[in-house]
């Protein structure tokens, strides 16, 4: 069992959990993820590592309530435990060859770019950061990102905070006026695809983190496969980060939505909405 040491609500339906998991924390690095099961009957679901503390033996994840498992997690509080927690999985982000990086986080994608910002900052290469959300209350990790970024550009769809519009509007503006070696974009698939289209004409290196459906997360089932530059890659062991300009996003979107009906049905069942 893995104990929840802290739980903090960051926004409606978004919680941050600090989990006691020394084995996962020991070698964790930015860009990697974990897989957890809430209970003995649970499914295996991947979550990106939002932070880690190797000495304390903890891994921090952000969870947005979108379905059955995340709903079950939302019912758990500090002091409760979950059945399984394995990691770190996937490859760490490799930003070592870049001097100036633009990090772009959409929604809880901000969780993924948080450890990257922290690391870059510690290397004396504080990145510019664009954080996007629908509305002000959904802009996550603002304090942390302010601390680690060179400059922070919040964006809201409704203009309730920062710039009004999508992250892509800000990215388009920034890459015209500033010089970056790379862009790392994390968020929903449509957002990552859109960022790639913005950077494609200039050929600016753009890295995205693929949030495919996964089962084992160790390369033994191929459920998370993505087509990258015409080649089949497994997001869990070859990624999750890939060159965004080479990703077949249309295929990725189809694959991500494949189990949506079954998932919705199960979510309704566990909430007692369907008998």
């Amino acid at each position, binding site marked *: 069992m893995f104990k929840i040491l802290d739980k903090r609500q960051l926004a409606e339906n978004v919680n941050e959990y600090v989990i006691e998991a020394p084995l996962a924390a020991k070698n964790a690095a930015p860009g990697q993820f974990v897989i957890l099961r809430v209970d003995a009957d649970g499914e295996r679901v991947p979550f990106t590592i939002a932070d880690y503390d190797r000495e304390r033996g903890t891994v921090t994840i952000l969870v947005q309530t979108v379905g059955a498992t995340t709903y079950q997690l939302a019912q758990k509080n500090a002091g409760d435990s979950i059945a399984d927690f394995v990691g770190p999985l996937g490859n760490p982000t490799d930003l070592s060859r870049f001097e100036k990086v633009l990090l772009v986080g959409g929604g809880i994608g901000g969780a993924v770019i948080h450890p990257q910002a922290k690391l870059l900052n510690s290397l004396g290469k504080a990145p510019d950061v664009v954080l996007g959300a629908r509305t002000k209350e959904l802009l996550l990790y603002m304090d942390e990102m302010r601390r680690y970024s060179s400059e922070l550009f919040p964006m809201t769809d409704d203009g309730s905070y920062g710039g009004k519009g999508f992250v892509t509007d800000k990215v388009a503006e920034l890459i015209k006026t500033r010089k970056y070696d790379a862009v790392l974009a994390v968020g929903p698939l449509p957002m990552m695809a859109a960022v790639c289209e913005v950077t494609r004409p200039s050929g600016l290196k753009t890295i995205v983190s693929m949030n495919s459906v996964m089962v084992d997360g160790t390369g*033994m089932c191929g459920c998370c496969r993505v087509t990258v530059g015409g080649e*089949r890659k497994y997001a869990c062991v070859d990624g999750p980060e890939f060159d965004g300009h080479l990703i077949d996003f249309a295929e990725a979107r*189809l*694959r991500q939505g494949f189990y949506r009906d079954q998932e919705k049905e*199960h979510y309704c069942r566990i909430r007692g909405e369907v008998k």
Partner: protein
Amino acid sequence: MPEPRNIPPFRDAEIRRRNFEEVNMGFDAETAKKEASRCLQCKNPMCRQGCPVGVNIPAFILKIKNGDFEGARDTITADNNLPSICGRVCPQETQCESRCVLGKKFGAVAIGALERFAGDYIVGGKPAVPAEKVGKSVAVIGSGPAGLSCAADLIKRGFDVTIFEAFHTTGGVLSYGIPEFRLPKRIVKAEIASLEKMGVKIVTNAVIGKSLTIAELKEDFDFIFLGTGAGLPGFMNIPGEGLPGVCSANEFLTRVNLMKAMNPDAATPVQRGKNVMVVGAGNVAMDAARTAMRLGADHVTIVYRRSRTEMPARKEEIEHAEEEGIELKLLTSPVEIIGNGKVEKVRLIRTELGEPDERGRRRPIDIPGSEFEVAADEVIMALGTSPNPVLTKSCPELKTGPRGIIAVDEDGRTSVPGVYAGGDAATGAATVILAMSAGKRAAKAIVADAGLN
């Protein structure tokens, strides 16, 4: 003249094709004794030579004949710690039973069914008396058949043994791969629980190469055994393989066997195709096809590019699949998967057999112009697997051969001192019993290298 071979009862095909209950119901005590009395108790038993782990077959069969079922189990577990599992999944027809002198003329003694009977008599057996500790520790990576047999032999020799497993459940392919209707999971759980009773420690949720590296393990353990299997699935690299509705047999079987997706209330979803095509003809293909039928398919087809003679699956499994209404489309191979948003049909091509390849199997050759299309809403690729590169990538000094197979000497020693490997990780995909024998061989080498012989 010997009596004819006794056959255990099988569940009726019409009923079993829609449920996950075990197909082979096993011998009852009376039939087991009857079958055991067919054994001629050869002075020089060939059957024993056919067993990869050298179980003393005539001795355990004699005990069954005399009604000493517990003694029969103890006799088997001296060489094989998982009789209930091996009795079910070993290809006895090419191993022990193929050497039985009764053989062709009267039908070999049903060694596998008897082993299963003895194993099941007390599943998991009684906890063995703890061995005197030798003060050496071993980390076993992977809890599949290779790791389990290595761990069992070393705990019996007094080593401190810790198994590290990446999944949340132990058993490897016994848990995620082989379906309930061939190998009930309660059997796997009980056999592993008996190892824990003997003192084997198990750490689940530990991916070696990620959570811990081999270098880190070497600080805490005297020896390391790698039994990480060959879990990386192959695909065909044909157009349309990325479409939703196409999956590997590993994914499909893991969802059903490990995650219990056959239960409609399970948290893990699985596709329940109505018109399912399985590509491949090994045991995994049979398991996937029969599982798809049990999930409610109207029609399941197995597509194979060679003929029936070359099918690598056990004959019994092919027969069971056919009895359950699964269609075999032989000398046929997919060239494209077609669909708008998800799989709708598969373009196939007819093949003919050419000259034998380096492994002696006749090579399939596409017949030009013979392409045709068939409808399918789910395609399962059962094309074989290769070792997972996660572990070897994290340990560059570990020498590997073709397809990432870990290079070992004949006793299972790798290129890294103190590190041993066996099973599918060191041979490529093979059988449960060969993995078990490799685990035993490495255990023997570890005992020798620890200076304890």
